[in-house]
């Protein structure tokens, strides 16, 4: 393998691992802040226990999210130095703004929250958690704007052999970035809601801490319902925007080879890149792809054959990740709607509780697939239409990248095992044990 492929693998490993923890911290921080606020307002000890129990799970994820985020920032310089030199004028400034505006706030106040229970008034302590939650989400906004710019570069001119900023406002109002924000952040809240519901379901199945976990479940249910609907709507808007800005990605998402009007959606297919077509196609719905892409059944949709071979993304991973994401995205509102009907008799609805327990990994899978789609689907471009990934890697020795790739796998493997062991351990123990433990 060459440096580019090794660097891509390394970056994929680092981002996908990072994103196992970040979404939960975005949503759960806000929900913990909400629980603590309820405690301050009502004095109800159950809310305090909820704050501490879910807060502990939040903190484990937060630690893993932060430390894996640090490597990501530096990997642009270590592994993608040509990219950094070419795009730093714009991309670098977004990262720097993220650090000074949001990351400082989040990291300073998380320490205060952990250590400040007795040093601050109840009200101030709850406010601190809101600051942590707000800062975490603002941080995500800037990172998504940075990624959005790689998907649809705006507000720049090519000068001195690189992209230079000409319009900062265009960069921060980049439609691609904004769509990523309204799709990804609600997805993170959805994941957190399913996390809460799944763990609550486990304890309700065992009939322990019933009041505690019924209330927790209901918070998750409301958040899950609202966000799953938002995610579907913004996902649709996002697909329309991708059709207009990244036709190659859309064609690969659908394994759509022939440019045509009334383009169909294929229910099942096995893409065959070598022969520029699909090996098997089952169930074709005419016009649906045109409708999804352009909200018009008669619109023409570009096929992969009309895109130069060296500008086509790898079809199979793009196709599979998109289908998986959409299938799961459709499932989430259904699960929460069913939950709304069952919420008064949760304890008796054991099949539903089992379903929700087993559903914990699904939002994780959906989000990872979303990123595979966004990033693999953008290939061979690292910045769409401007710079190819192959031209972006650092001029460094293969052996170095190989060594660190192994290092990543070892270190992240250790972290993953320890982290998930702790999460499962604390989630399984339940609230009382959590507050007895130090």
């Amino acid at each position, binding site marked *: 393998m060459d440096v580019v492929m090794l660097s891509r693998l390394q970056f994929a490993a680092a981002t996908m691992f990072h994103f196992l923890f970040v979404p939960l911290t975005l949503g759960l921080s806000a929900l913990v802040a909400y629980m603590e606020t309820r405690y301050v307002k009502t004095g109800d000890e159950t809310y305090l226990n909820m704050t*501490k129990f879910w807060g502990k799970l939040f*903190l*484990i994820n937060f*630690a893993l999210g932060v*430390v*894996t985020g*640090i*490597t990501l*920032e*530096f990997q*642009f*310089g*270590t*592994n993608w*130095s040509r990219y*950094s*030199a070419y*795009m*730093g*004028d*714009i991309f*670098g*400034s977004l*990262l*720097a*703004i*993220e*650090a*000074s*505006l949001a*990351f*400082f*706030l989040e*990291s*300073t*106040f998380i*320490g*205060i929250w*952990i*250590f*400040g*229970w*007795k*040093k601050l008034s109840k009200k101030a302590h709850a406010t601190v958690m809101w600051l942590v939650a707000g800062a975490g989400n603002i941080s995500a906004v800037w990172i998504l704007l940075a990624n959005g710019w790689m998907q649809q570069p705006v507000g720049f001119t090519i*000068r001195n052999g*690189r992209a230079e*900023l000409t319009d*900062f406002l265009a960069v921060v109002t980049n439609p691609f970035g904004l769509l990523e924000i309204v799709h990804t952040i609600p997805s993170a809240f959805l994941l957190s809601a399913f996390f809460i519901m799944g763990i609550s379901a486990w304890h309700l199945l065992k009939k322990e801490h019933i009041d505690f976990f019924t209330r927790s479940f209901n918070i998750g249910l409301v958040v899950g319902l609202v966000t799953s609907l938002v995610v579907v709507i913004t996902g649709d808007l996002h697909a329309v925007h991708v059709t207009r800005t990244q036709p190659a990605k859309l064609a690969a998402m659908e394994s759509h080879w022939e440019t045509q009007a009334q383009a169909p959606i294929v229910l099942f297919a096995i893409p065959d890149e070598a022969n520029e077509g699909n090996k098997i196609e089952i169930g074709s719905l005419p016009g649906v792809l045109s409708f999804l892409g352009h909200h018009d059944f008669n619109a023409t949709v570009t096929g992969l054959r009309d895109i130069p071979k060296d500008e086509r993304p790898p079809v199979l991973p793009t196709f599979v990740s998109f289908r998986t994401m959409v299938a799961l995205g459709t499932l989430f509102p259904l699960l929460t709607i069913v939950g709304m009907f069952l919420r008064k008799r949760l304890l008796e609805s054991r099949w539903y509780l089992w379903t929700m327990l087993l559903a914990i990994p699904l939002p994780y899978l959906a989000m990872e697939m979303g990123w595979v789609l966004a990033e693999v689907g953008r290939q061979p471009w690292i910045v769409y239409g401007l710079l190819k990934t192959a031209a972006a890697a*650092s*001029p*460094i020795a293969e052996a170095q990248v190989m060594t*660190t790739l192994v*290092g990543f796998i070892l*270190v992240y493997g250790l*972290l993953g095992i320890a*982290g998930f062991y*702790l999460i499962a351990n604390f989630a399984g123990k339940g609230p009382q044990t959590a507050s*007895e*433990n*130090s």
Partner: protein
Amino acid sequence: MLLQSVWFFLWGLLWAVFFMTDGFDMGIGSLYPLLGKSERDKHMMIHAMGPMWDGNEVWLITAGGVTFAAFPLVYAVMFSSLYSALMLILFALILRGVSFEFRNKVESAAWKKVWDTCIFLGSFLPALLFGVAFGNIFQGIPFDGDGVYQGTLLTLLNPYGLLAGVLFVCLFVMHGALWLAIRTDGDLAERAARLAGKLWPVLTGVAVVFLVATFIFTSLYDNYLATPVLFLVPLVAVAGLVGIRYFLMQQAFFKAWFSSAATIVACTFFGVIGLFPSLFPSSIDTAFSLTAFNASSSPLTLQIMLIVVVLFIPVVLAYQIWAYKLFSGKVTDDDLAHEETY
């Protein structure tokens, strides 16, 4: 020119603040096996930096982010050249970061031992390697006109680079020992203070050797000889060093820590001023060197970033100082017993 120069010094300032704040965390972690005799000692040491270390580490993220934003070419060439060293630092910091959170969550001696080791390695290695990296930058890095590094990891481990590494370790360990003397009590605080006292001659010796070696191996003094008034900066470092000794004898640990902070900031600026306008000099040919003027972002980006930094860094400083004040007293047993903390 002015904008680029301003950014050059802001770049230096961010590194200086990072070393000043996270420096004591790295120092405490490096002292962890030495001073952490009992379980209570270890708890105390983690608590002494617990509320701050995360916020401190963000100064590194910001220093990195600002290098990326203001001097993208430096970011690209620096981090790809120092690839292996930087990756080692990052892995070390990762392990340190989770150790605080993970260590006390399972009652098992083996589990604790793993994370104790990570706390030490995650503090000591970055302290050493940041020094090695800066030492190498001071004397120039072998990279060519295309920004391609012509050495290996071992190239960086040359005598001058290692000397800078040792200096950084000494500075941070001193800084950490003083912080422990301030924030812990009893036997641990006394041992930390005694250690600081013993360390002082070592640190001073290493600093003198470093200053002489710098004269021999680098051209850092050129700027000083051209503008002798700049010698005030290394004088501040010397004054800080003397201050540490003076306040240690008075048992005024907080003042001693401040002196140590001044020493670290002045040492960083000694290097930064000596480098100016180079950010990343090439040892192959000075024509390849990256400077504040040939490696910066566009004026528009520099202006926007300056507005962001001028508006927000004071805010950051304000709440970080507030956080330090909030946790200013000695760590008590009551704090240690509190359930939510590490």
